[in-house]
């Protein structure tokens, strides 16, 4: 017979200081991975510098140049897509592969803490890329800030959320760090190609250019371009980004594994 001398269950959950410490730890991990910073920060800057001179003098809409209508939206989308879809998932896949997530699974830290901490650090990284690209475009190439600043911030946040949600899906299904990078890159290039990464959505075959604004990369480029010139954001762009965020988060939450 067993008597009910059940120990009282201490229900302590890691508090704000644990979240902060974990986030700072993730930031140190990311900043010490120098190679991983080159693509999300360096590549968009390179594309910007390569095309800014010509695009900055090509007036497309009213007083707005191709730099504002197309290049900057593309570069900003590129920053959040590389970080969200390629970098962050490879970090999480590495953590899983190396046993770090397994080790954390036997502490009071929860899966959400690791995901949130890595997410926060990636957002900071994306903001760094954004500030870098904007500074260069505004200071050196005479670009103007978006006409609808508040809407631009909203679109940026929504697009970031969508890319990260996709990245979380990659992270939750990829069995190894290599496969995370592979799946992430395939997804990134597929969405990027359809979203105008290699020469504009107008250059795509008709049946593809029709779906581009419905996919997150193209939607982000188009929506950012719209707010830059002060136009309304096409509804399909917003729908696409919102749907990607919601579906991606739900799928990632359902599939995430510690090992």
């Amino acid at each position: 017979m067993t008597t009910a001398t059940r120990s009282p269950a201490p229900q302590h959950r890691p508090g704000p200081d644990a979240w902060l410490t974990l986030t700072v730890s993730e930031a140190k991990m990311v900043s010490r991975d120098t190679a991983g910073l080159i693509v999300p920060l360096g590549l968009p800057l390179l594309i910007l510098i390569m095309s800014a001179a010509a695009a900055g003098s090509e007036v497309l809409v009213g007083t707005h140049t191709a730099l504002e209508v197309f290049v900057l939206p593309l570069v900003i989308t590129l920053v959040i897509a590389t970080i969200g879809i390629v970098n962050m998932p490879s970090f999480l896949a590495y953590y899983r592969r190396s046993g770090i997530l397994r080790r954390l699974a036997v502490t009071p830290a929860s899966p959400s803490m690791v995901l949130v901490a890595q997410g926060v650090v990636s957002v900071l990284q994306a903001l760094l890329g954004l500030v870098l690209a904007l500074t260069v475009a505004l200071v050196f190439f005479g670009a103007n800030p978006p006409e609808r600043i508040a809407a631009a911030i909203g679109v940026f946040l929504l697009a970031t959320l969508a890319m990260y949600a996709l990245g979380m899906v990659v992270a939750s299904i990829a069995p190894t760090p290599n496969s995370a990078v592979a799946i992430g890159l395939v997804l990134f290039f597929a969405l990027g190609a359809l979203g105008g990464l290699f020469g504009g959505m107008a250059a795509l075959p008709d049946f593809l250019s029709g779906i581009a604004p419905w996919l997150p990369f193209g939607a982000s480029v188009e929506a950012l371009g719209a707010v830059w010139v002060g136009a309304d954001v096409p509804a399909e762009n917003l729908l696409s980004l919102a749907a990607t965020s919601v579906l991606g988060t739900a799928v990632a939450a359902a599939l995430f594994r510690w090992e």
Partner: protein
Amino acid sequence: MTTTTAAVMADSLTKAYRGGTAVDGITLRIEPGEVFGILGTNGAGKTTTVEMIAGLRRPDSGEVRIFGLDPHRDRGAVRQILGVQLQQAYMHHALSVDELIDLYRSFYPDPRPAADLRALVGLEDQRRVRFEKLSGGQQQRLSIALALVGRPRLVILDELTTGLDPHARRRMWSTLEGLRKEDVTIVLVSHAMDEVERLCDRVALIDAGRVVALDTPAGLAAQGGADSLEDAFVTLTGRELEIDG
């Protein structure tokens, strides 16, 4: 009649993988304050057993209770009283000893002081060394320190001293003696005979996913009709313990 709650109650655990059955009906009752050894060859099912006890794997059938708590249903509570050193677990590789200790300390309400942890495993001189730059033995020692951060009532140590030099082994053993004095329950997975013989109150001999014998180290030696635990192991399982640690 039992009046105390067992530190670990594992009841008829089974677990099969694609390659076959890893654990085939293991039942263990480990008392509070006990140092309990789980001894067996590689592939005997030791690690799978303790991973089910720690709540890292769900048994196909059977039940686990840790101080009366279910590792899955009462996950939050169990994590507070359980410390685990996994056989192959790596830390955030770019973080230093101090940074990792601080990170793990932040998870618990009343963590051990960082200085105590460093002293416990002898890493006072490696405070700013990144995990990836530590030697294998130092990584192992840090891993053990992190298992003790939250002042656990139950510690599971999987291959405690594998890969440690003789000096570090002795040091680890005295650390365990210290824990015993604090009434911490310790489950020690090992295939090192001398370690089990020296440290454990009782030992379960596991072979092919089953408990083939369970007794004090001296009792096991007697059961096997042998002078030493090592000879008893061969008699009881028909296998040699490979020496690779």
